[in-house]
C-alpha cells in the first residue's frame, strides 16, 4: 500500500482518523510526511489547548501531555485526571543499550513504545539531555505550530536538597509553571534566589510559605512572573506584593498591614509601580477589620448607586490545572484612576478580601460601560 498514491483528500481523511501520538510518529518518518501532517491537520491542531511537559526530577522522566479543547473540561480539573489517553509521549533517561533511532530536527533520537503501544517513548543519555529535549520540542513546534501554549510544569519543589537545581531546558515558546514550598531547603533565601536566578522567568508561581524568610532581592526573577499565587495562612510573612511586576497576584495570608495595602494602591495610582498589573486579590485571615474603612484612605471614586457597574473578570492565570477558570468577578461601584494614563481599576472589599481589577479603559470609557 503506497500512501502517496491516494488523492490528497483521501490522505487527509486517513490522517484525520489517526490519534495524536500516531501522527507524531508518522511525522518522524520523513520531511514530506511532516509537511503533509502540518498542512492537512491545521484545523484539527487548533483544538489543542496546550502541550505540557511534566518533568519528574527524581528519575528524570518527562511526560508530555496534550490538552484538547474538544474534550470535556472536567477531564482537566485535577492534575491526576490527565490519563494515558492525553499523553503525547514520554521522555526517559536511557538505561539499556538498545537503539531504534529516528531523526527529530537533525538529532537522532532513540524511540521505544509503552507496553500497551499507546504512546511513544523517547530516550536520552544524561550528557545529551538538553539537546534531546530541544530537538523534540522543535519538532513539536514544526508539527503542531507555535500558536498553542507550551508549558513546562514543575510542581512540588520542597525539601529535596539533591534536586534543588532546576533542570529547565531552553525551549522556544515554553512557559515555566512552578509550585514551591517555602520551608526546609528553600526557607534559606540564598537557595530561593539561586533557584530563580537559574530559571527562566516563570509564567505562574504557586508559593506555599511555611516559614518566615529574610527579604528577597527586589530584582529577583521571582517578581517578574506573569502570575503569582502565595498561600501563607499561618505565617505573617513579608510583603510579596510590593515588588511584583507581573499581571496577576493573589495572596492568601495570615495578616497584611494596612499601610502596605494603602501603599500598593497609591503606587499604582501614581504610575510609580504595577504598570502590568491586571488583577490583585488579597485575602486576610486575621486583623482585617481595617478593610471596611480602606476606601476612604485610598481615595476611591464611586459610580452612581442607582446604576449597575460592569463586571471585571479575566482568565485565571494562577493555576495551570484549571485552564478555563476566571479571576473572582469584581462588580463594584468603587474605583480608582491612575494619574499617568487615566486607566481605571475596580476595587471591591468583603469581610476578609481586597480585590483590585484593572480595566483596559480610561475613566471616560469605563463610565460609558456603566448601565
Amino acid at each position, binding site marked *: *500500500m503506497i500512501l502517496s498514491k491516494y488523492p490528497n483528500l483521501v490522505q487527509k481523511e*486517513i490522517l484525520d482518523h489517526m490519534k495524536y501520538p500516531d501522527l507524531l*510518529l*508518522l511525522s518522524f*518518518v*520523513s520531511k*514530506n510526511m511532516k509537511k503533509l501532517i502540518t498542512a492537512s491537520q491545521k484545523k484539527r491542531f487548533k483544538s489543542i489547548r496546550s502541550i505540557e511537559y511534566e518533568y519528574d526530577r527524581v528519575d528524570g522522566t518527562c511526560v508530555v501531555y496534550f490538552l484538547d479543547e474538544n474534550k470535556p473540561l472536567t477531564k482537566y480539573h485535577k492534575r491526576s485526571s490527565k490519563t494515558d489517553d492525553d499523553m503525547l509521549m514520554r521522555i526517559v533517561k536511557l538505561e539499556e543499550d538498545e537503539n531504534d533511532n529516528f531523526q527529530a530536527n537533525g538529532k537522532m533520537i532513540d524511540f521505544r513504545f509503552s507496553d500497551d503501544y499507546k504512546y*511513544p517513548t523517547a530516550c536520552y543519555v544524561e550528557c545529551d539531555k538538553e539537546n534531546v529535549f530541544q530537538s523534540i520540542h522543535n519538532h513539536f513546534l514544526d508539527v503542531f505550530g507555535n500558536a498553542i501554549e507550551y508549558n513546562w510544569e514543575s510542581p512540588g519543589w520542597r525539601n529535596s536538597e539533591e534536586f534543588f537545581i532546576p533542570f529547565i531546558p531552553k525551549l522556544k515558546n515554553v512557559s515555566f509553571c512552578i509550585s514551591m514550598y517555602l520551608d526546609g531547603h528553600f526557607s534559606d533565601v540564598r537557595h530561593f534566589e539561586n533557584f530563580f536566578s537559574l530559571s527562566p522567568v516563570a509564567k505562574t508561581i504557586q508559593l506555599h510559605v511555611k516559614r518566615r524568610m529574610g527579604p528577597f532581592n527586589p530584582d529577583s526573577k521571582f517578581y517578574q512572573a506573569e502570575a503569582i499565587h502565595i498561600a501563607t495562612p499561618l505565617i505573617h510573612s513579608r510583603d510579596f506584593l510590593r515588588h511584583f511586576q507581573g499581571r496577576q497576584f493573589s495572596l492568601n495570608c495570615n495578616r497584611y498591614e494596612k499601610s502596605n495595602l494603602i501603599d500598593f494602591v497609591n503606587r499604582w495610582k501614581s504610575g510609580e509601580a504595577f504598570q502590568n498589573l491586571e488583577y490583585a486579590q488579597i485575602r486576610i485571615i486575621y486583623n482585617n477589620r481595617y478593610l471596611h474603612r480602606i476606601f476612604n484612605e485610598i481615595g476611591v471614586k464611586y459610580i452612581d448607586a442607582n446604576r449597575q457597574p460592569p463586571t471585571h473578570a479575566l482568565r485565571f492565570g494562577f493555576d495551570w490545572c484549571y485552564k478555563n477558570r476566571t479571576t473572582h468577578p469584581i462588580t463594584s461601584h468603587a474605583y480608582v484612576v491612575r494619574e499617568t494614563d487615566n486607566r481605571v481599576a475596580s476595587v471591591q472589599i468583603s469581610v476578609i478580601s481586597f480585590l483590585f481589577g484593572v480595566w483596559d479603559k480610561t475613566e471616560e470609557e469605563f463610565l460609558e460601560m456603566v448601565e
Partner: protein
Amino acid sequence: MSSTEQGTSSAAPAEPTTAPESAAAPEVPESFYYVHGKDKVVHKVSAGALQHSALIHGMISNLGYTEEQAKANPFPFENIDGDILQMVVDWCNQHKGKPTPPEDTNLPKQKEKLFDLVLAVNYLEIKELLTYCCKQVAMMVKGKSPEEIREIWMIPTDAEDEAAEKEAKKRAGKEAAGETAAAAGDAK
C-alpha cells in the same frame, strides 16, 4: 461485452420486499441499474442501493431509463477491478435505506485489497464507506514505530524523496527544452 448478469449470495440484488423503506411507503416499483468493472461482469443494483454513491446517483437521477434501457446500458467502471466492485455493490446493498453504523468490521484485511477499495470508493464518492476504509487504513499504523509505518505505507526516505524530486526536475527541464526545440522547428 459479455453481459453476465450476476446476483451474488451476499449481494443479492435488492428485492422490493426486503427493502425497508417499501414497508412504510406506498408501493412504488423499484428501478434497477447495471454496473460492471474491469472484468465486465455486470451487477444488477437497485437505485436505492446506488444512492450511496454520489457519482452514480448523479448519473442516474435524470435518466428515466426503462428496465430494458438500463439493462442495455450498464455503467462501465473500467478502472475498478471486478472483485472490488463486487465488494462495493455488496456494501451498498447491505446498507440500502439503513443508517450506517459507526464501525464496519467487514472490510478487507489485506493491504492491497483495502488500497484498491479506497480508490474505488473515493472515485464512486461513497462517503460513509470511504470513512470506514480510511479509519481502517489509519488503524494499520496504530502503535507502530516510524520504521514500521514506513514499511506499511511504503513511504520513501528523505533521500529517496530528494532523488525523486531531482529526477522530476531534470525530466521537466528536458521536456521544456524539447518543447522549445519543437517550437523553434515549427517556426522555421
